[in-house]
């Protein structure tokens, strides 16, 4: 069997980027830069893992960026609100984390409910909720910025900046989520069912697969991961505003597609998504580290990569 470009493509692209980066700037492979790139990838990465399941099952979620902003705002408000009674400390962080997770689950459930039970197109539902969350966070912040109490910021800071053995928490969480996701997608009944539903939901239904349940779970799972990503994100800046999480949904979807998951559903792979996320972050990082190309062209280069990835997917189809 000749090497499959569809499998090798994303890996080769990533390797090429690393070589280019290393050649152009000696600091590129330094521990500090690698940690920086990976930590920043973690937010989109955690969300993109969930997005892979949603897309594989034939769905789409445009609301994740706004959802993250809204959950961040909510988490800050809850912690600020309880600060006078509970005082700054880990118990309060725990409440904030709990609030973020519950909010993520509810938001995911809501998207799932509208898509499955109410039978509305995922694109429409999540376009709607995207606007709703974006507007809600703007309203909560009264058009400005929601800032976490300064004392709490110091308490919560380690969630983003600390870690074990020099590896920061966001990277660890991203890695765990990715590994678990890969196992579930590849070897779990849920992953198989999601691919079946995305491939042909009628066949899945006639095969006694509970189609609505599978679809619902993909959205709830994604909501949960948005909650977790937000927990990693809030300690970094300690604030949320109407510009938090803007375009995250598109970055996450782009990472999924670059990784080889089919946008129309039926086939997905988590490791591909992880590579997709890394490719997108590395492009950004390399442009920032080098002088040759303006970082303002980041979006254009990412766009070209996304389109190339889809062309490569199609080539395989025609050849097979």
């Amino acid at each position, binding site marked *: 069997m000749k090497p499959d470009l569809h499998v090798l493509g994303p890996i080769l692209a990533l390797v090429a980027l690393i070589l280019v980066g290393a050649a152009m700037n000696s600091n590129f492979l330094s521990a500090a830069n690698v940690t920086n790139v990976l930590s920043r990838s973690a937010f989109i990465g955690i969300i993109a893992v969930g997005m892979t399941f949603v897309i594989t099952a034939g769905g789409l979620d445009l609301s994740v960026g706004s959802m993250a902003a809204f959950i961040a705002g909510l988490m800050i408000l809850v912690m600020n609100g309880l600060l006078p009674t509970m005082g700054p400390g880990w118990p309060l962080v725990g409440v904030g984390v709990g609030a973020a997770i519950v909010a993520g689950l509810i938001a995911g459930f809501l998207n799932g409910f509208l898509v499955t039970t109410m039978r509305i197109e995922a694109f429409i539902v999540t376009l709607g909720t995207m606007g709703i969350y974006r507007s809600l966070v703007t309203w909560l912040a009264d058009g400005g910025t929601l800032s976490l109490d300064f004392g709490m910021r110091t308490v919560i800071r380690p969630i983003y900046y600390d870690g074990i053995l020099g590896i920061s928490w966001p990277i660890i969480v991203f890695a765990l989520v990715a590994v678990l996701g890969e196992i579930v997608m590849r070897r779990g009944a849920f992953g198989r069912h999601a691919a079946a539903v995305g491939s042909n939901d009628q*066949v899945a*239904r*006639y*095969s006694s697969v509970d189609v609505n349940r599978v679809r619902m779970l993909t959205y709830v799972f994604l909501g949960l991961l948005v909650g977790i990503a937000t927990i990693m994100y809030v300690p970094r800046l300690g604030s949320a505003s109407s510009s938090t999480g803007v375009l995250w949904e598109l970055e996450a979807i782009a990472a999924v597609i670059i990784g080889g998951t089919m946008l129309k559903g039926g086939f997905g792979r988590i490791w591909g998504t992880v590579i997709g996320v890394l490719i997108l972050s590395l492009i950004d990082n390399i442009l920032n580290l080098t002088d040759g190309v303006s970082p303002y062209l980041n979006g254009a280069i990412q766009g070209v990569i996304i389109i190339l990835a889809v062309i490569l997917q199609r080539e395989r189809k025609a050849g097979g």
Partner: protein
Amino acid sequence: MKLTLSGIDRRFGDVQVLFDVDLVLNPGEVHALIGENGAGKSTTMKIMSGYLAPTAGQVLLDDAPVTFAGSQDAEARGVVLIHQEFNLAEQLTVEQNVFLGHELKRGPFLDKRAMRARTRELLDRLNCQVSLDARVRDISNPDKQMVEIAKALGREARVLVMDEPTAVLTEREAEVLFEQVDRLRAEGVALLFTSHKLDEVKRISDRVTVMRDGRVVAQAATAEMSEDDMATAMVGRDVSSLYPARTRPVGEEVVLSVRGLSVPGHAADVSFDLRRGEILGIAGLIGSGRTETMEGLVGLRTATGRIEMHGREVRFDRPRAALAAGVAYLTEDRKARGLLLAKGMRENLTLQSLSDFTAFLIDERAEDRALDRAIADFDIRAPHRKVEVGNLSGGNQQKLLLAKTMLADPEIVVIDEPTRGIDIGTKQQIYAFIHALVADGKSVIVISSEMQEVIGLADRILVMRQGRVAGELTGDEIGEDRIVRLAMGLDGMRGAAA
């Protein structure tokens, strides 16, 4: 125009699917191409019409060698293939479809008037009354077929190749098609069609070519071959005993008892019993609510009524519940509802019973073993294990679907149209499987639109008409005439419907 295939070979990778095929289509002649699924008919047709190139051999038009650059090139030279699944844009009108991709223009604008006139003329030639402004999704199957033919004629088709044109048509609709085929023959068009219905072949064709395993095994004037000769040539063995004999009597125990089952809009007050080891046939016209009743039974549709298994009431609000109780339904539509065409055999085989293969993770080795067994037990013939199921022949897809359903080890199996669109050899195998099931103490409900099939298989037949049970036939009562009379509403209500 005369089209000749001379010494055609075709390979896909290492697999050779056509061996030295010779075939001549003469103007004004209807040629029937028959053979089992996987015999190479489709590949032959695709080579004729430019969808595939031969690996060796020649295609000749009026005795001059040609190499088609593709199907469009073939169409431009007057050779058109009409696919079994219609190739029409459902949302567009009849007229728009006929000229799709070849629109007539006046300057930069569409010349609507000329296209309308031409479309009307083409459809009139086919004696087809359909409105030019009707959307294709709203017209009947035979009308769609006519639109396809009109489209072909609009491109000056002189050689028309039709892949199972009657598969989706009722007998009356097929009759209309045949009148048009006669007309085209009289106009000097060279026609080739495939069909699994030998009576049709006998009636409409002038010459027959029989293929088996990629080779032409018989070629003769239709008048010289009987239907039996054709079947024997297709299968390569005697098929006179299509339906196996019963090896074990029907049991006494009632395993399933249905009372007053209603599916809103489709079926009302259906009641019947099913015994252990019994094959219950359900006959009726298309649209009589047979499929919907059974889908209601297994929880694929909302239904009301009382269902008892072994005397205990059960409720199937979803297919999973029915399956857990041991009732499985095998759909009539294997492509759209039965199998994931873009996935491999393994994923398809275990989809319905995946929980049996999953502890924490899916046990892929156990899945592979199950596939080995299924391939052996059901005689599934695939080029290799990783093949996408959409690339299997219809008969092998149906066997895989059967294997998938049986993997869940149901006690009662509802099989909807067990042999639709598959060849006679595979049919015989599937009938043998069904008999093996009942010999094993399972019970089977067979829905079929093929009269011979229901009669040949069933111990007892329920005839449905307009969503109700019109009558029940057992033993000597079973006969084509009785079934037709009940299905058409000529005989009164009796039996279970009372």
